[in-house]
């Protein structure tokens, strides 16, 4: 018998004569206290994110590239990691080309092993899309893709995320349900709620522990 067989046999033996507990899942408890009127939804998300040092800006589909450029310029950042294979990446590239900003765009188009050093030490900022947001907790939903891999939202000190206002849900339950998570999960799914932080030294909060020091969320009100 393998360890697996022995463990399972022991557990089964202990359950003889018992009946499984019924599933009386109470979705109402996870949704009703966490519902927001359409007008308040984005405000809630912003206040939750800002309470944990996330920065948010309301903008539009047309204007966000300029906002991103301004945010980078304000921080003296001359280089941005962004995917050229996404619609938003292409929109940004066109905007950069038409402007005099001189921002260098670079792509994550090789396996991480091939450019670890550069990713870790010479990539000051990244921009990615999101799959939506959660108002209750001020969270972004990311399902990294081959175009926007996992480390893109983790390693660079500044992460700029695009969030479509129409894709913000009230709570995690509604989001999981609407996006059919249970029918197939990706390699990695993430909820991101603010920049990286720690309170491990005498309960004193410090931002920028191992992940991004800053998170800027550009909320596209008309998308």
């Amino acid at each position: 018998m393998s360890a697996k067989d022995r463990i399972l046999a022991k557990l089964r033996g202990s359950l003889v004569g018992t009946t499984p507990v019924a599933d009386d899942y109470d979705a109402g408890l996870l949704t009703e206290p966490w519902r927001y009127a359409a007008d308040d939804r984005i405000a809630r998300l912003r206040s939750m994110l800002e309470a944990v040092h996330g920065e948010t800006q309301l903008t539009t589909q047309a204007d966000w590239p300029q906002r991103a450029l301004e945010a980078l310029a304000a921080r003296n950042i001359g280089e941005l990691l962004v995917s050229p294979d996404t619609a938003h990446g292409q929109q940004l590239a066109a905007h950069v080309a038409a402007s005099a900003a001189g921002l260098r765009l670079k792509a994550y188009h090789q396996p991480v092993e091939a450019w670890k050093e550069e990713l870790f030490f010479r990539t000051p900022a990244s921009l990615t899309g999101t799959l939506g947001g959660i108002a209750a907790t001020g969270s972004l939903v990311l399902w990294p893709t081959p175009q926007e891999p996992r480390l893109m939202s983790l390693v660079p000190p500044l992460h700029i995320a695009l969030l479509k206002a129409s894709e913000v849900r009230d709570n995690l339950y509604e989001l999981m349900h609407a996006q059919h998570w249970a029918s197939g999960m990706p390699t990695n799914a993430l909820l991101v709620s603010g920049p990286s932080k720690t309170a491990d030294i005498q309960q004193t909060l410090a931002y920028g522990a191992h992940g991004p020091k800053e998170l800027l969320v550009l909320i596209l009100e008309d998308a």
Partner: protein
Amino acid sequence: MSAMTDVPAVPIAFKRNAREALADPQLRRNFRGAMDFLMDKRRVQFPDGDELERLRAFGNRVRARALSKLPELLERLDANLSRNGVKVHWAETVEEANAIVHRIVEQHAAKKVIKGKSMVSEEMEMNHYLGERGVDCLESDMGEFIVQLREEKPSHIIMPAIHLNVGQVASLFHDKLEVDYTEDVDRLIQIGRETLRRNFFEADIGVSGVNFAVAETGTLLLVENEGNGRMSTTVPPVHIAVTGIEKVVENLRDVIPLLSLLTRSATGQAITTYVNMISGPRKADELDGPQEVHLVLLDNGRSQAFADGELRQTLNCIRCGACMNHCPVYTRIGGHAYGTVYPGPIGKIVTPHMLGLDTTRDLPTASSMCGACGEVCPVKIPIPALLRRLREEAVRAPEAVPHHMRGQGSKYSKKEAMLWKAWRKLNTSPALYRAFSFAGTRLSALMPSNIGPWTEHRSAPKPAARSLHELAREHLGED
């Protein structure tokens, strides 16, 4: 199989540790401050008492349901993870679990392991095991990193370095990392970040724990604030997750109430910065993430707790740490005094299954039974009732029932058992009781002033001249 050795277990020197901790004013200040902070943070997260109680009941049902189908769910988890490309391993003991990890390490000729926070890896003493075999294990959670630099163990399951204040961390970094002394926490964290960053991508293997393992989808869910968990599970070419067999839940949606209870109870956060859900290794077209993902499912005494309907509730635990934050004993003596990986109330009820009641014989009695732990536990584990039960198991006569707990009866004493028997007889036989109280009151002058441990911190009781029964009877005019 776990070896039931005949070597007498050496009990943890709890009483000595506790005395030492109580005599350390710095330690007591650090814990008092930290616990007040964590209790306040939790309170703010649950403004609606009704919502809290309903959510606790919900969390309890979700855990109870998972445990009521545990073998089936574990098999489903195994099947779904395997289908996703994750290699699942099973271990009955920590020795087996360590050997599994070491085998993977050897297959990859790995020299360096980076770890996210994992209490199960502490339970396994994985750092030590791999260290002895020439493999470096570096902790990447800031608190764990600090504790490792001090060659200590975590003193809290959520905040490992909670026993230290900023000055102590500043001196540590100054001594060990050769940086200028600074008490600026932002600067200290940046020093930690810089030190660890290179290690993430030099590591051959990343190790993490698991907060919830979802049977339905084959998903491992991890919560964290720092990003070190995401780093450890994404950057190295191999990821090994280690967890206890009880961590499984049935459906993906089951994590929603548990996640809310966990982060709000633990650190008073609506949600942690990251909720990281891993369902497989890197796919052919993906550019990062580990090429291999392993899950080690560890029993280590959990199936023993599972065997008993009452003790099974121990396995509801979602390791939030709220019971220790609210425990008057933990707050005063800190985490190290327990001498176990899991300190505080949860440690007292879970460790006896891992190490045996003989080794841990003082833990179930290290409680004032104030009940705070049971009141705050987000999954409603009746911790005080389980402590009482373990006390009973510890003194159960060896021949009374077949042994189902390791170390059961380790506190059994014939003399004590006989005394209790006599006490029962005395209190259930009216004639005897009357004679006793008559003697007790009339001979009160003979009461010794030193009656062992009782009088160490209290004055000796002085029996009244006449018993309450007598006075009552007189009052009612019965005599």
